[in-house]
């Protein structure tokens, strides 16, 4: 599961990890909201938020390399906005402000998601009165993401091992059949999970 390093960090220990998840989420949300709504010329405010978040990131001992890699994924969006700004200097928000806002918000979200197990986030959402059906759906999704992703990888490998020349037409059909099999298996598994839930008293 090299494509998903998140869960490796959520169980280390630091002040940020030990913070109550609901407090942490509320703080992050307030910070992101304030950053999103702050006027463009509040440079000091952006600097303060940046200092706070960088400090927290360092304290939490989340690998910086990973955080930076993730932040770089934002750059295409920011470059696009910057390019448009170059041709339309009359747009109300200059691209630097958009870039600052999105980088800071992403840093805040990353810090929360990297230091809080997803189950805890779900608990907070449940207490915040998010409908139970949506919570159950997300909990099951989170539980079986990895199972299905592994299943898909195994299927693709098995199919590729019998594909001798990768022609595009064949590749499309292979990929479509992998995805369709994935759905068939997911729905069969859904039935078995429902049985298992019933066997232990689900109502």
């Amino acid at each position, binding site marked *: 599961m090299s494509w998903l390093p998140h869960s490796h960090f959520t169980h280390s220990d630091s002040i940020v990890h030990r913070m109550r998840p609901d407090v942490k989420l509320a703080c992050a949300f307030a910070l*992101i909201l304030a950053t999103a709504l702050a006027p463009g010329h509040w440079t000091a405010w952006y600097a303060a938020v940046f200092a706070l978040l960088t400090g927290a990131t360092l304290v939490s001992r989340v690998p910086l390399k990973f955080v930076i890699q993730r932040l770089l994924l934002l750059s295409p969006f920011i470059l696009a906005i910057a390019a448009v700004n170059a041709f339309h200097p009359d747009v109300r928000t200059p691209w630097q402000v958009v870039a600052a806002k999105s980088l800071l918000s*992403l840093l805040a*979200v990353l810090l929360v998601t990297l230091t809080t197990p997803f189950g805890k986030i779900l608990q907070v959402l449940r207490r915040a009165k998010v409908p139970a059906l949506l919570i159950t759906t997300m909990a099951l999704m989170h539980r*079986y993401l990895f199972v299905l992703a592994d*299943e898909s990888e195994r299927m693709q490998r098995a199919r590729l091992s019998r594909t001798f020349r990768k022609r595009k037409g064949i590749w499309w059909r292979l990929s479509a059949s992998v*995805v369709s*099999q994935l*759905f068939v298996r997911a729905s069969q598994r859904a039935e078995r999970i*429902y049985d298992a839930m019933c066997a232990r008293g689900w109502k």
Partner: protein
Amino acid sequence: MHIPDGFLDGKTAGVAAALSVCGVGMALRQVKRELPPRKTSLLGLSAAFLFAAQMVNFPILGGTSGHLIGSALITALLGLAPAIVVMTAVLIVQCFLFSDGGVVALGANVFNMAVLGCVTAHFSFHAARRAMPGTRGEVAAVAFAGWCAVVAGAITCAAQLAWSGRLPWTTAFPAMALLHMLIGIGEGLISALVYLAIVRARPDLANTSSPTHAPPWTSVTLGMAVALGIAIFLAPFASTLPDGLESVAQRFGFEHAAVAPPVSAPMPDYEVPGISWSVGATAVAGAAGTVIVFLLALALGRLLVPRKQSATPG
């Protein structure tokens, strides 16, 4: 199409979030009322399926590859309300687990891809399905619905960016619409191929019963969809629309909450003839594209499904 934080201003994010809460709330209520208990676990597994399916690559041009987005496929398989719930779960998990898409922008993302995406897919699917009988019609309809859902979501995304003052509408609309008219072709093709393979393997899994009984919910969404459709297709011609929205915002006092313009007040650039022409041209291309894609979808259905198999509807 996941909008990151910082790209929307307060009023846009707020309005989009309110619309999403309404849409998802209605979908949840409908699911609770009508979904058999045995299918509860299918929602979560479908969400996990979409996530895993998005990691399967389809080669496009040169070294690039695309992947399934899935709102049309899941709408065709599960029905409208469950599909909205599933897509919403996917977007929330992507936001909080992979920090994909912003937190303040979550409402807008849910609106574009879950609510509007699935509603568009649902109505375009059921409308296009009537064009041809049997599995052929379904496959063609899924392809068409996949394209429509992607394009509709992209247009509202552009509108949100424009309304937030981050991009001029005259740039955002043509760029997003034209780009996603291309992406939508891939999405339609993938959705159709996957749908056909599922129906061949397990015909019982596709829930394609057309909405014959019409509870109030259907008429409400139909009304919403029609209104949205009109708005989407008329918006480009009414080049004063951003102004119109602005004046509404001013009347309701939103404007004070919005970001103060750091640069001097913008000269509305859509009055420049060349640029407003690009908006009009995009709208014409969109209308023509819809017809062409619809015909292509029908051809795809004929190509993929032999007449004999189509006779036994899945």
